[in-house]
């Protein structure tokens, strides 16, 4: 399955958030598309991103690299990158790489949008 991406803007208590809904497989082939999307958003001035990964079937280290790259970019603008994920198979990859300490991971888009910490 290919990668699907869609974005929408949502207002939260901390200000506007851009939700990036990702579906399908994020791997060495598709990750560049996600990278382009994140780079484009940051270049367009969206510095507070919520990446919704509930529709992601597969994630590998290439995808992790893109997310870390996105985090680096938004932080350069004092922004944030939050993840939404409940799938154990995906969460496991964040755990074994220690990235659960790097990304705030939320159980729902609402929770991520309303987070102000």
């Amino acid at each position, binding site marked *: 399955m290919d990668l699907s991406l869609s974005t929408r803007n949502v207002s939260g208590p901390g200000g506007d958030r851009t939700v990036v809904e990702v579906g399908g*497989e994020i*791997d*060495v*082939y598709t990750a560049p598309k996600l*990278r382009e999307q994140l*780079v484009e958003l940051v270049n367009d001035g969206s510095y507070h991103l919520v990446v919704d990964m509930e529709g992601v079937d*597969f994630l*590998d*280290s*290439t995808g*992790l*690299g*893109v997310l*870390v*790259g996105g985090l*680096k970019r938004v932080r350069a603008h004092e922004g944030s990158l939050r993840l939404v994920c409940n799938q154990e*198979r995906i969460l496991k*990859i964040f755990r*074994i*790489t220690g990235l659960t300490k790097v990304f705030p991971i939320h159980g729902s888009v609402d929770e991520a949008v309303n987070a102000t910490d």
Partner: protein
Amino acid sequence: MATVELRFSAQPEHVRTARLVAAAVARRAGVDEAVLDEVRLAVGEACSRAVGLHRSHGIDAPVHVVLTEEEKLFSIEVGDEVPGSGGGASAVPGVRASGPEDESDDGAEDEMGLAVISGLVDDVEVTSGESGGIIRMSWPTTPATVLP
């Protein structure tokens, strides 16, 4: 003898095919369903790494995957043809020539791939020689139910 062998040109789009084949053969070999996700991810990481190494070294040869069903064991070997690649990107200076800022995320990915593999797979061995590197991984299998 290998149960299934796969050779694919070093293109990112073929890594998914390798994942699907490996998972299908692993399932047939009796690897526990709960572990198949790990097999899929580990073989994908190893193949992504091999594809990256071939491309960065301008090697036209295919990436080689060998899936072997043994007694109580299912093993996967992913071979690249980059001499001395077994130690990861750090062992091959200049593998990722520094490019524009947009490419700067890539450097860590090779090493992260190996980190994911070693975090996922208990039995893993990374070797390298003059003809290239091999990542060898194996998982226990549960014996198939004997049909009457």
